């Protein structure tokens, strides 16, 4: 018992907690960006676009390709790094957008009136296809970028926040605000909201459904392209990361209230925090019964609890009454 109490308090330092918060928010910002794509597509089509995570994964390989082409290293000057990263982002956004558009056209559109499970199965097929394609024709190994944009800002004691982390945070919030404006202000955004509310009614009102859906996929996938750049600045990639990242992002979207843009953002941050704090402190909190290897269990448990007790999500978006 005493051992438990010791465990409970050991390692709980202000620096540690602050560092874990920063870790969590950084991870969460990428989840959030991917979650936006899930959330938008689900809002409009009520479809879990299982292949969305793989679109993101392909984005990371585009980033690798572009930065590799310019031979970036950890010692490259900012004058080279920044334009190349921007170029990589544009390339990843463009390729992901084309891919998202194509996937919808080929794998989902023919199934719009098919039984409910059909598009989900199709999405799983696309996901497998993309992963295996990368593994067969590009690489089945792990890859990282060199340490670009090194440097950090001291915060407290020996805790610092790195420039890359600040960039990740700021970019994801900017993207979220931009998307929110797009949905609120533009006619296309109105169309999206209309289709999300009631597909048939929107069609009767003269909303071009196909166009709205295509556009939803394009925007969501382009955001995954942005997420890919940010991801590569901090983490590594291989052909399988899309599936895991996608699942986490979907969880984030559900936590925030699916179909809700700020919700997806908030859900991403919350999930990132839950994972970081969970992995860091669960061992202490459970007297050593659970170890940090249960990290993924937290995400799934969070999702399950959320769906069971508060299916509308934190932001209380209307959950469609499907029967």
């Amino acid at each position, binding site marked *: 018992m005493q051992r438990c109490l010791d465990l409970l308090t050991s390692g709980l330092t202000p620096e540690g907690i602050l560092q874990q918060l920063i870790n969590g928010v950084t991870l969460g910002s990428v989840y959030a960006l991917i979650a936006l794509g899930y959330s938008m597509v689900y809002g409009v089509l009520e479809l*879990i676009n299982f292949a969305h995570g793989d679109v993101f994964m392909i984005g990371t390989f585009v980033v690798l390709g572009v930065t590799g082409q310019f031979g970036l290293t950890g010692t490259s000057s900012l004058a080279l790094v920044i334009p190349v990263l921007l170029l990589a982002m544009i390339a990843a956004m463009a390729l992901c957008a084309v891919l998202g558009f194509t996937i919808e056209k*080929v*794998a989902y559109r023919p199934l719009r009136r098919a039984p409910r499970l059909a598009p989900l*199965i199709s999405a799983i097929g696309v996901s497998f*296809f993309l*992963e295996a394609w990368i593994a067969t*024709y590009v690489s089945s190994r792990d890859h990282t970028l060199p340490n670009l944009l090194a440097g950090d800002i001291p915060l407290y004691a020996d805790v610092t926040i790195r420039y890359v982390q600040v960039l990740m945070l700021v970019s994801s919030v900017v993207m979220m605000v931009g998307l929110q404006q797009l949905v609120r202000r533009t006619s296309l955004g109105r169309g999206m909201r209309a289709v999300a509310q009631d597909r048939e009614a929107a069609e009767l009102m003269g909303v071009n459904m196909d166009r709205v859906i295509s556009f939803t996929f394009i925007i969501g996938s382009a955001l995954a392209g942005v997420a890919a750049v940010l991801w590569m600045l901090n983490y590594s990639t291989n052909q399988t990361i899309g599936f895991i990242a996608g699942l986490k992002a979907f969880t984030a979207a559900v936590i925030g209230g699916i179909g809700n843009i700020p919700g997806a953002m908030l859900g991403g941050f919350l999930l990132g925090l839950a994972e970081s704090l969970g992995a860091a402190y669960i061992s202490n909190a459970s007297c050593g*019964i659970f170890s940090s290897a249960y990290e993924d269990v937290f995400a799934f448990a969070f*999702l399950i609890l959320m769906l069971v007790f508060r299916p509308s999500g934190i932001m209380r978006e209307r959950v469609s009454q499907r029967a």
Partner: protein
Amino acid sequence: MSFVDAFVAFLHGPFGNNPFAILAWQALLAGAAYLIVRLVRGRVPRQATAPVRLAGKGASVVLRNRYALLLIGLFLPLIELLTGGYLLSVTYSIELYVLLAVGLNIVVGFTGLLDLGYVAFFAVGAYVYGLFASPQLYEITKQTTYFLVSQSVVGPQPGFHISMLVLIPLAGAAAALFGVLIGIPTLRLRGDYLAIVTLGFGEITRIFANNLDQPINITNGPNGIINIDPVTIGSYSFGNPANHLGPFQIPPFLNYYYLVLLLILLTVFIVSRLERSRVGRAWAAIREDETAAQVAGINTRNLKLLAYASGGFFGGMAGAIYAAGQHLIAPDSFQLFVSILVLVMVVAGGMGSIPGAVVGAIVVGFLYFLSPSLLYLRILVFGGLLVLLIIVRPQGFLPSAQRERELEEKEEDPSLVAATPGPAP
């Protein structure tokens, strides 16, 4: 092999190793395939009910020829043995998948609950068998270290070694109970949400299996459980390679093949009787419209749990036999991919159709299990075919024969044969 090589080269295209060139070539191929599909299929049907109208034919062909199929099932392994044991080992793996597909079909096909975590039941069954028919539980009490294990004398094995006649049903029951436990929190969820939650449960199960070596070593973590007893009836051990029938040697895979065949027959028998009973009708009603089913007097909660439990039971039995035949089980064998593979079998065969699940498992299984050295390429082709299949034939190879069966009943009804056709009142 030359055909496979040619196929690989064809997919790779003539433009060298640049991924973009390969992508462009494959996009071209896909475009051509898409055009052909469009031409063959005509326009996309505008009605959700279109697939159903096509239902029936294929499944009844299978049903009518079921005795011929049974004969093939009985003699196929003997023919395969002429080429050695490899084909038989593949056939045996596929058989386990048939059992899984028939079980999952109860949940997904009959009841309409999309379960992406079915592998959890398989795992529970396998671990129940593994724990109670191996030295593992003994080692828990021993608090072993690696040194001790490597020095322990292997002779008569310590630990529990319970008979398979008890363990296989017990494994099924444990998986059924597990089905009820994960069913309870998901009762209110529908469609995609349910899919993602069940997927989560499947992954959680695997992660627990991988981590329950601490603080007490129950599952032996990533190493898995080894030295699992083979199925033994009396003094006949299924795992003994020295078994002989007259001059013929009986390889272990053959024993297990017939055991699983027997279980498949039993399962198909039970499941098809359930399908035609009030339970099966209630499941179908839940699949079609849960609210209307409730109002029609169906206790949807209990019947959904019953579906999970039944599906879990057959999955658990399959897991137990897998563990017995495999000699070793490890968490890595219970990946999400297994759930998806079984689901694809059910969908490809035709959801809600027992002959469909069986045929789907056989076709998809052979596609998948042959040519293991082409791991990624076969997943590539597998993924592509999956999309193509669901677009061209969303109802599967052999969709539910329900309608056909009702028509058969019509023939049995003398009053109807006598009735003159006329306009409905």
